[in-house]
C-alpha cells in the first residue's frame, strides 16, 4: 500500500533551535505582510518565497498575503500556483480586495465597492488635506488612482519616488524634516489633519494610514484584511491560536501606529504576531520581535514546512468556549471520559480512549445500525479497534486530552519523565467511516500496536496484514451483515500516520476491497488532506448551528457540547439508527426509542436537515415492519415499536431487575404506544422546518398509516366518547393506565394532521376527524389541568419537590414501586410534553396551570425531563427555574449526574438542551412558511444567539433584552408577538424592538 510521504523538496531550518517558545510549534495559517516582510521590495526576486508558499500549501498550511498594493503587483512578483490542500489568499488594496490563488491563478473573492458618494467624499478629503498642507506652504501631490482611497504624497521629490523599505528611517527623517520646516510638527500632525479632513468630507469612519511618504485616506485598511481572513480561516476550522501573523511594521511610525499593527484585530487576538522588521520604536505588547527581515520570514516559513514534513501533531485552538479539556488520568473516571471525548462521523463512533493501552479503558468502535444478536439481546456490534497506537506503559504517566468541539479534533498528550507522545484523532463527516490518527514521539517500554485489532469481546473475526502493508479486518454480525475495515500505517522516525476505513452492512458483509478503495481515493498527503477537509466540514456545520449565550459561558459550553455530540452521531446520507446513546457507548444496546424522533430530530431538522432526514429514513425503511406490527396486534395502519433495532420490530426486553435484585416485567414494549404518534410528529416537524418537497410523500405515508392505527385503536363508549385503554405514557411510574392524556392528545393530533393530507378519502377523513373530536383528553375546565390518565387525580397527592432530598431522583427507589404507583409522582413530563410538542392541541393558556400542578409532582427521574421542563418554564416566563433545569440538563454527562455516562452519552437530553434554548428561550416555532420568534431572556444573560436553517434559509437569530436581530439568507419570513410578518434577507439584520409584550420593526 502506498504511503503518504509527499515528494516535496527538503527544507532545513537550522534556526529552529533558537526560536522563542511561542513559535516553537506548528501553526495552521500564516498571515503576512508582503513588502519588507516576505520580500525586501517589490522588485525583488520572490522565487524562494514562491517555492515555500507552494510547498506549505501542499502540506496543508494556509497562507494569506496582506498588502496595500494591487493583485498585478503581488501576483506578478509571487506567482505562486498552489494546488492545496492549503489555500493561498491575497488580501490587497489596503483591505479592499481578496483573491484566492489556485493552480490557475488569482480569483477575486471579495471587493469593497465604494458608492459614488464615498468616492466623492474621498476626493474631497484628500483635496481638503492637500489644501491645508499647501496653506502651510508644503507642496504635496494627490494620488487618486487607488481603489477606495486617495493618497497625499508628502514628499513629491523624484529622489524619493519609490523608496525601498530598508531606507524607511531615512525617508521618515526626510519627511519629518520637511514637515517641520513648514511648521507642521510632524507626521502625527498630518494624520490628525487627515482625520479631520475626512470627517469634514463626510467620512466619519475613514481609515487614515501612512507609509511615511504618503498619508492615505481610505475606506478600508489592513484591519479589514485581518478581519476578513480571520473569518475565512474560521470557516476552514482554523482558530486564531493557530495563526501566525508576520509583518515588519508593528511599531509606531511617525506618531501613528505601524501599518502592520492594523492586523492586530480582536478577531485574531489569540494569534501569535511576529515582526521581522527593524522596528526602531519597538513593537506593541504581545508582538514577538525577531528582526532579520525577509530572510527571517523565509526561515519561519521553512520551519513550518519542516514541522509538517516530520509529522508534528497539529495543535488545536484551545478556546475554552469550545474545548473540553481533561487533565490527568483517573482509572475510576476513565470510561466516563472516554464517552465524553467520543469522536464520530455519523457512520462510526470511537470512544476517546487513550492511544496507549490501559486496563481502565473501555475502548469501543461502533458502526451506526450494525446490530448483532436477536430480539431484545440485539445490540450494536463492537467493531475492530483502530485508535490504539502503543502498548501499556507500566509507570504512571501524565495525560492531557482536549476535544475541540468546533472542529471535532481530539488531541492527546502523554508524558512520562522527559518523553512525550502526542496524538491527534478524528473521524471525518466528509468521508464517513474513515478514521485518522497521527502520533508523534513515544513513551519508554511502550511498543507500537498493529493498525487494527479485534475487540476483546468478539470471536470469529479476522485481522491480517497484507503484503503491501494494509491491515485488513473483517467481523461478521449474527445473523447477517458485518463490518470490514482496512488501515494503513505510515511511519516516520517519530511519527505514525494511520488511516482506517470502515464499511459496515447490516444485511451483508461488505466486500473486502471496499476499505482499500476508500483509502486509495485519498489524495496525498493523506493526513493533511483529510485534516483540511475535516476542519472545513465541522466549521460548515457550525455555520448553521452556532449557539452563543452571552452572560453564561458554562451553559454556552454545555449547549455546544450537547449539539456537537448530536451532530456527530448522525449521518447525512442514507439512514441513521439513532440509538439512545448514539455511537458513544454500549448503553441501551443501540436501540432506537422516541428519543430519536422527539428529542433529537427537532434539533437536527433546524441545524442539519440532511441528518434529520436520515433519522426519518430509518423509520421509513421500517414502515412495513410497523404495518406488520399493527396487524399482529389486531389493528390497522402502522404501529412503530417502542424499542427498535435492525428490523424495526419491537426489541424491548420483557423483564429487568429492580434495585432490589428482583425481576420486574418491562411492559413498555407492549404498552408505550405513543411512539407511533411521535414518529408522525417528527415527520411533520421536519416538513415544517425544511419544506423538503421530496420528503412530503414519505411524511404523508407516515401520517396516514399512523392515523389508521389510532383510528383502529380508539374505542368508543356508549356516550360516543373515544378512549385508548391500557397504555403507558411518558411517565412510566404508572402502568398500565387508560386514557393517558399524552397518548390520547398525540393520537388526536395525528388524526387531525393526517386528515389534512391528500390521498385520504372523504369518508376516512370524516371518520378520523370525528374520532379525534371524540377522544377524551382529561382536561378539567375548572382547574385548567389535564388529568394525566383516568384516575390520576384520585391518587395520593404527593409533592415530591417538597420531600425528596433532591431532584432529579429515581422516585421508585426513594419511595418504592408500590408507593409510587399509588401516588401522584411523575418520572418526567407527561401532560406537559403536550404543551411542548403540540401546543395547538391543548387549551390556550393552560401551560401555567399544568406547570404549577405537575412540575412539583415530577421527580425528573428520567434524563429526558429537565430539558423539556426548562423549555416550558421559559415559555411560562419562569426564567430562573428554567435556567436551573437547563443547566442541569446540560451537565448530565459532563458531571455524570446519573452515573451511567460511562456507557454512553444521553443524546435525548442533549437534544432537549437545544430545544429548551430554541423553542423555550428564543420561542422559535414553525408556523407554516413563517418562523415565530418570541424571546424570553433571563436577566443574567446579555444575549442568546442561535443559528438555524428554516425552509432553505440560513438564519441567525439574536435576542437581547429589548431587541432582537435576525439575519436571513437568502430570505425567510418571521413573526413576533404583536408584530408584523417580516421578510428577513441580506447582510444587514432586521432589527425588532420590544415594546411591552409586543414587538415592532425598527
Amino acid at each position, binding site marked *: 500500500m502506498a504511503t503518504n510521504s509527499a515528494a516535496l523538496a527538503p527544507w532545513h531550518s537550522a534556526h529552529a533551535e533558537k526560536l522563542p517558545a511561542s513559535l516553537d510549534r506548528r501553526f495552521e495559517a500564516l498571515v503576512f505582510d508582503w513588502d519588507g516582510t516576505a520580500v525586501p521590495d517589490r522588485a525583488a526576486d520572490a522565487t524562494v518565497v514562491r517555492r515555500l508558499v507552494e510547498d506549505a500549501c501542499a502540506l496543508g498550511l494556509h497562507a494569506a498575503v496582506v498588502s496595500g498594493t494591487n493583485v498585478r503587483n503581488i501576483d506578478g512578483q509571487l506567482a505562486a500556483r498552489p494546488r492545496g490542500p492549503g489555500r493561498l489568499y491575497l488580501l490587497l488594496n489596503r483591505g479592499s480586495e481578496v483573491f484566492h490563488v489556485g493552480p490557475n491563478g488569482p480569483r477575486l473573492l471579495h471587493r469593497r465597492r465604494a458608492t459614488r458618494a464615498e468616492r466623492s467624499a474621498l476626493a474631497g478629503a484628500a483635496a481638503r488635506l492637500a489644501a491645508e498642507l499647501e496653506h502651510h506652504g508644503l507642496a504635496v501631490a494627490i494620488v487618486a488612482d487607488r481603489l477606495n482611497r486617495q493618497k497625499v504624497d508628502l514628499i513629491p521629490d523624484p529622489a524619493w519616488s519609490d523608496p525601498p523599505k530598508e531606507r524607511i528611517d531615512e525617508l521618515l527623517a526626510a519627511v519629518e524634516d520637511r514637515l517641520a520646516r513648514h511648521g507642521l510638527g510632524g507626521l502625527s500632525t498630518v494624520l490628525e489633519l487627515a482625520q479631520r479632513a475626512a470627517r469634514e468630507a463626510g467620512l466619519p469612519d475613514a481609515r487614515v494610514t501612512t507609509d511615511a511618504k504618503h498619508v492615505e485616506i481610505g475606506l478600508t485598511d489592513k484591519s479589514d484584511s485581518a478581519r476578513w481572513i480571520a473569518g475565512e480561516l474560521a470557516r476552514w476550522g482554523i482558530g486564531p491560536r493557530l495563526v501566525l501573523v508576520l509583518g515588519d511594521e508593528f511599531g509606531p511610525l511617525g506618531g501613528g501606529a505601524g501599518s502592520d499593527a492594523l492586523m492586530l484585530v480582536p478577531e485574531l487576538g489569540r494569534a501569535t504576531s511576529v515582526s521581522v522588521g527593524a522596528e526602531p520604536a519597538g513593537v506593541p505588547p504581545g508582538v514577538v520581535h525577531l528582526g532579520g527581515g525577509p530572510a527571517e520570514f523565509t526561515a519561519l516559513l521553512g520551519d513550518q514546512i519542516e514541522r509538517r514534513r516530520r509529522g508534528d501533531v497539529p495543535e488545536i485552538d484551545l478556546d*475554552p468556549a469550545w474545548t*473540553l*479539556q*481533561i*487533565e*490527568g488520568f*483517573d482509572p*475510576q*473516571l476513565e*470510561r*466516563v*471520559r472516554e464517552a*465524553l471525548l467520543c469522536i464520530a462521523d455519523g457512520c462510526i463512533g470511537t470512544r476517546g480512549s487513550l492511544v496507549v493501552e490501559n486496563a*481502565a479503558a*473501555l475502548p469501543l468502535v461502533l458502526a451506526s445500525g450494525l446490530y448483532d444478536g436477536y430480539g431484545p439481546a440485539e445490540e450494536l456490534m463492537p467493531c475492530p479497534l483502530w485508535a490504539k497506537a502503543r502498548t501499556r506503559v507500566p509507570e504512571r504517566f501524565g495525560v492531557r486530552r482536549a476535544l475541540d468541539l468546533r472542529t471535532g479534533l481530539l488531541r492527546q498528550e502523554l508524558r512520562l519523565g522527559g518523553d512525550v507522545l502526542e496524538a491527534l484523532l478524528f473521524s471525518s463527516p466528509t468521508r464517513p467511516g474513515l478514521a485518522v490518527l497521527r502520533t508523534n514521539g513515544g513513551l519508554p517500554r511502550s511498543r507500537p500496536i498493529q493498525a487494527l485489532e479485534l475487540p476483546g469481546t468478539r470471536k470469529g473475526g479476522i485481522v491480517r496484514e497484507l503484503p503491501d502493508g494494509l491491515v485488513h479486518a473483517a467481523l461478521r454480525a449474527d445473523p447477517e451483515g458485518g463490518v470490514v475495515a482496512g488501515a494503513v500505517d505510515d511511519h516516520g522516525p517519530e511519527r505514525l500516520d494511520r488511516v482506517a476505513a470502515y464499511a459496515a452492512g447490516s444485511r451483508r458483509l461488505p466486500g473486502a476491497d471496499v476499505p482499500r478503495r476508500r483509502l486509495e481515493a485519498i489524495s496525498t498527503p493523506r493526513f493533511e488532506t483529510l485534516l483540511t477537509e475535516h476542519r472545513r466540514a465541522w466549521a460548515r456545520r457550525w455555520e448553521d448551528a452556532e449557539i452563543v449565550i452571552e452572560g453564561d459561558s458554562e451553559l454556552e459550553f454545555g449547549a455546544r457540547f450537547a449539539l456537537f455530540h448530536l451532530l456527530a452521531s448522525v449521518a447525512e446520507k442514507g439512514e441513521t439508527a439513532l440509538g*439512545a446513546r448514539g455511537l458513544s457507548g454500549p*448503553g*441501551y*444496546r443501540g436501540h432506537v426509542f422516541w428519543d430519536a424522533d422527539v428529542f433529537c430530530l427537532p434539533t437536527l431538522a433546524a441545524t442539519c436537515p440532511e441528518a434529520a432526514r436520515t433519522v426519518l429514513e430509518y423509520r421509513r425503511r421500517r414502515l412495513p415492519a410497523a404495518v406488520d406490527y399493527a396487524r399482529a396486534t389486531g389493528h390497522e395502519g402502522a404501529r412503530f415499536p417502542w424499542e427498535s433495532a435492525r428490523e424495526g420490530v419491537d426489541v424491548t*426486553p420483557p*423483564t*429487568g*431487575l*429492580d*434495585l*432490589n*435484585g428482583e425481576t*420486574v416485567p*418491562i411492559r413498555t414494549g407492549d404498552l408505550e404506544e405513543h411512539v407511533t404518534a411521535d414518529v408522525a410528529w417528527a415527520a411533520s416537524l421536519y416538513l415544517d422546518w425544511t419544506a423538503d418537497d421530496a420528503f412530503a410523500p414519505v411524511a404523508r405515508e407516515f401520517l396516514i398509516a399512523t392515523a389508521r392505527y389510532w383510528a383502529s385503536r380508539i374505542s368508543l363508549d356508549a356516550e360516543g366518547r373515544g378512549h385508548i385503554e391500557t397504555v403507558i405514557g411518558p411517565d412510566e411510574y404508572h402502568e398500565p393506565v387508560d386514557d393517558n392524556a399524552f397518548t390520547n392528545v398525540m393520537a388526536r393530533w395525528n388524526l387531525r394532521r393526517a386528515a389534512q393530507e391528500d390521498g385520504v378519502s372523504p369518508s376516512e377523513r370524516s371518520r378520523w376527524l370525528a374520532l379525534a373530536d371524540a377522544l377524551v383528553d382529561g382536561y378539567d375546565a375548572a382547574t385548567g389541568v389535564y388529568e394525566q390518565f383516568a384516575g390520576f387525580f384520585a391518587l395520593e397527592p404527593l409533592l415530591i419537590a417538597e420531600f425528596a*432530598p433532591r431532584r*432529579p*431522583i*429515581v*422516585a*421508585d*427507589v*426513594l*419511595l418504592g414501586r408500590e408507593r409510587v404507583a399509588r401516588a401522584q409522582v411523575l418520572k418526567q413530563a407527561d401532560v406537559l410534553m403536550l404543551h411542548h410538542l403540540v401546543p395547538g392541541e391543548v387549551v390556550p393558556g393552560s401551560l401555567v396551570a399544568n406547570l404549577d400542578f405537575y412540575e412539583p409532582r415530577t421527580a*425528573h*427521574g*428520567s*434524563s*429526558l425531563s429537565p430539558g423539556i421542563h426548562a423549555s416550558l418554564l421559559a415559555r411560562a416566563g419562569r426564567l430562573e427555574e428554567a435556567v436551573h433545569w437547563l443547566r442541569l440538563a446540560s451537565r*448530565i454527562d*459532563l*458531571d*455524570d*449526574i*446519573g*452515573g*451511567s*455516562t*460511562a*456507557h*454512553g452519552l*444521553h443524546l435525548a437530553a442533549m437534544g432537549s438542551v437545544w430545544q429548551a434554548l430554541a423553542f423555550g428561550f428564543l420561542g422559535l416555532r414553525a408556523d407554516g412558511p413563517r418562523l415565530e420568534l418570541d424571546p424570553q431572556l433571563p436577566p443574567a444573560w446579555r444575549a442568546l444567539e442561535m443559528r438555524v436553517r428554516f425552509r432553505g434559509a440560513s438564519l441567525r437569530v439574536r435576542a437581547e433584552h429589548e431587541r432582537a436581530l435576525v439575519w436571513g439568507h437568502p430570505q425567510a419570513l418571521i413573526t413576533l408577538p404583536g408584530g408584523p410578518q417580516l421578510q428577513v434577507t441580506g447582510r444587514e439584520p432586521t432589527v425588532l424592538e420590544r415594546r411591552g409584550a409586543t414587538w415592532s420593526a425598527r
Partner: protein
Amino acid sequence: MKRVVVGLIGSDADARPVLRATIEAARLFGSDAEAVQGRSQARFARSRAIAGELGVPLRVLEPAPASRLVAEAAREEVTCLVIGVPRRPFASRDERGAVFVDLAVSTHKPLLVVPPGARIGPMRRLLAPLDGSPEISRALQRFLTRVDPAGIEIVMLHVCSRDEAPAFSDHALYELEAWGSEFLARNCPQGRLELRVGAPEDLVLDVADATAADLIVLGWDQLPARGQGRVVRRVLQGAGIPVLLLAARRASSLAHRPTTASVLSTV
C-alpha cells in the same frame, strides 16, 4: 512460609469450628494453618487434641495469646488471623470479646471472625459488601491479590440507601446494566454485583443467605461505632457463616460509586 494463625482463646468451648475455618482460610490464602494457645488456658488439652485431629499444628504462646495476638498478626508471614467470637462480640465482656475488639480495631491483616454456630465449609462464594468508597474497594482488591482466585466467586453487594437513590433511571434494565457494570469496573472487575435498596446493616445477611455465600468479606474503617462499623456489628451478631474483616483507612468519599460531580478535573 505464609501462615494463617488462629488464636484459641480462654473459654472457647469448642475449638473445632474455629480450627476448621482456619483450615479453609489457609486454603483461600494459599497458606499453612497454625493454632496458638496459652498452656495455662482452660481446655488446653482438649484444643490440642482437636487441632491434632484436624492436622493443625498448635504452638504454645506464653503469656497467653490474648495479649500476644496483635503482635502475632504483625508478623510478616501471617496472612490472616482467625478468632472465634461470642454472638455480640463488641458488647461481650468475656475475654474473647475483648481480644476480638483489640484485634479488630488495630490489625491491618485480614481478620477471620467465626461466630458461634457458623456453618463452616469451603470458601468458594464470597459476598463482599461495598459502599463505593475507594478505601473499601482498595481493601477488597488488596485481599483479592493475596488469595488464590481459582474456584472463587466474588459477589459484590452494594446497598443504596433511599436518600442515595440515583438521579436518573431511564430504563429498568439498561440503566442498571450500565450503572452496575461501571460500579464493578470501579470496584472489582472480576466479580458480579447484587444491588439492594435500604440499609446495608439490614440487608447483608439476607443477601448472604439468598446467594448462599460461604464467607462475608467486609471492609471497614475499624471504627466500631460508625459507618461500616454499624454493618460489622450487625453482621457479626447474626452471621451464620464466617466473616472476614478487612482493614481500610477511613472512607473519605464515595468516588468509586459511578455518581460523581468531578468527572472533569480541569476544564
